[in-house]
């Protein structure tokens, strides 16, 4: 070493900055992703920030990285799904993980095997992460009690409770449509988001509200009284706000984001709305209502879409702010980030 030696201490950080592992990430290896309220605003921002790099990976000519070689991801779907299941499997494959898939219709559940026995059987084959969907709330949480300590459980939608990766991908898509990417501090501060439709029975709505409010958005739940929750206490997390509205026509021009929810056809038989046509005339996005949506607004829908019920048949093909296919594409990237943080990276040691 030829240069001068000068002894001094450098600490550029503010005096109140946390030292050591206090500043560690919210997601660490071996943890589960069950709901966004557990992840918290900091964890949500962290996950969205990691999503940027996976969006780039998905745009490559060879969209595959070796990050999860040798890991196995099992999709355990006790309820039907197209996009969530395929999205998780694609995410796992693009990270070079192996995938196993399970669906009730072709399994021993039909012979009476319990959820616990099913999980323990598959676990014995060696699984690093289970992605669980079930029609009853809380099943993914229950499964965390039955898996090995190092196995992660990711909630792929449980009952009315939560669908965390959907909330994350909706938040990411809105950030992307507004700013190009999530960046290292994703924010929706001051963004007015209307969540329209069957909020009460929707796990997507609960996770969306948590993701949006965690990033500071103003969320308005819009729908007929029978499809809105009796109370919104505890729905929001972080700095955002939640309110309830009924008059879609007067609210639409104020919205920065029109987030549509699926009307579950089984609800139509429960006398919650008089008929599908009645719902469409009051809360559906018709050609007339499309004129009330600002041209710079963003329109999202989690799918599957009931064309002719919550949207009229061709309306969504004409508005420039429709990001439904981007939601699906970003879903893969968000799930790659979740899998990578849960079973790849994230050990908070140096």
């Amino acid at each position, binding site marked *: 070493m030829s240069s001068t*030696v000068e002894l001094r201490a450098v*600490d550029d950080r503010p005096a109140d900055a946390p030292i050591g592992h206090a*500043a560690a990430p919210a997601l660490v290896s071996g943890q589960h992703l069950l709901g966004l309220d557990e992840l918290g605003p900091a964890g949500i921002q962290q996950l969205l920030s990691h999503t940027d790099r996976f969006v*780039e990976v998905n745009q490559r000519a060879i969209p595959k990285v070796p990050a999860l070689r040798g890991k196995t991801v099992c999709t355990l779907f006790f309820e039907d799904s197209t996009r969530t299941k395929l999205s998780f499997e694609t995410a796992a494959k693009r990270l070079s993980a192996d995938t196993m898939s399970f669906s009730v219709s072709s399994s021993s559940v039909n012979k009476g095997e319990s959820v616990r026995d099913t999980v323990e059987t598959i676990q014995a084959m060696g699984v690093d992460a289970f992605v669980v969907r079930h029609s009853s709330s809380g099943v993914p949480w229950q499964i965390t009690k039955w898996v090995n300590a190092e196995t992660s459980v990711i909630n792929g939608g449980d009952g009315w409770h939560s669908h965390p990766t959907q909330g994350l991908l909706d938040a990411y898509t809105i950030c992307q449509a507004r700013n190009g990417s999530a960046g290292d501090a994703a924010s929706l501060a001051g963004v007015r988001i209307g969540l329209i439709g069957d909020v009460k029975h929707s796990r997507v709505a609960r996770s969306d509200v948590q993701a949006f409010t965690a990033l500071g958005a103003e969320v308005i739940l819009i729908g007929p009284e029978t499809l809105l929750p009796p109370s919104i206490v505890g729905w929001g997390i972080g700095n955002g706000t939640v309110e309830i509205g009924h008059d879609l026509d007067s609210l639409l021009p104020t919205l920065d984001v029109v987030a549509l929810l699926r009307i579950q056809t089984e609800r139509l038989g429960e006398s919650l709305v008089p008929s599908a046509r009645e719902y469409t005339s009051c809360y559906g996005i018709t050609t007339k209502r499309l004129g009330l949506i600002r041209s710079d607004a963003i329109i999202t829908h989690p799918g599957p879409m009931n064309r002719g019920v919550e949207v009229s048949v061709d309306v969504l093909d004409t508005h420039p702010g429709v990001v439904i296919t981007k939601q699906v594409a970003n879903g893969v990237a968000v799930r790659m980030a979740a899998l990578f943080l849960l079973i790849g990276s994230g050990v908070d040691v140096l």
Partner: protein
Amino acid sequence: MAERERRGAPPFGGVFVARAQVLDAEQVHRALVRISHEIVERNRGLDDVVLVGLQTGGTPLADSIAGILHSMEDTEVPVGVLDVALYRDDIGIRPVLPQAVTDIPGDLTGRTVILVDDVLYTGRTIRAALDALNAFGRPRSVQLAVMIDRGHRELPIRPDFVGKNLPTRRDEVVDVTLDGVELGEVLK
């Protein structure tokens, strides 16, 4: 992001304490000018040369070399950035920083790629980078430029262009910015 900020930010959360200044800003600049000349000399010009800075410490150095090459040869050399986090062999051992996104300018097939990083240490980052480059084509050759070679290699990797060879202990940390190079340690 230099080593000091990287070690100070989550998920690391330590404090970098400098023990000695190894190079000042002027010496860093001179080293970059020399490396730029060596790049032109080695490749007989800048045809098909692409600079790729490694996230996060190599990116400002790659930009700086591109600026120097432009003033020397009046040629715009494409500059990319590469994040190797998903190709590392220590995934699960070492925390991964968010916000390090790859951006490679076009297909690298047939190009001469010059990887630029701040510090060459075990060589494992460069191994991961060579692996990552495969996703973007088949370069004609890959060369390595580093500001500091601090020794302790664990893989058969050597740099082509070096700012300074700096013998270090394993527990030391080298912080490289365009404003200078400091040797120190991280307190937790």
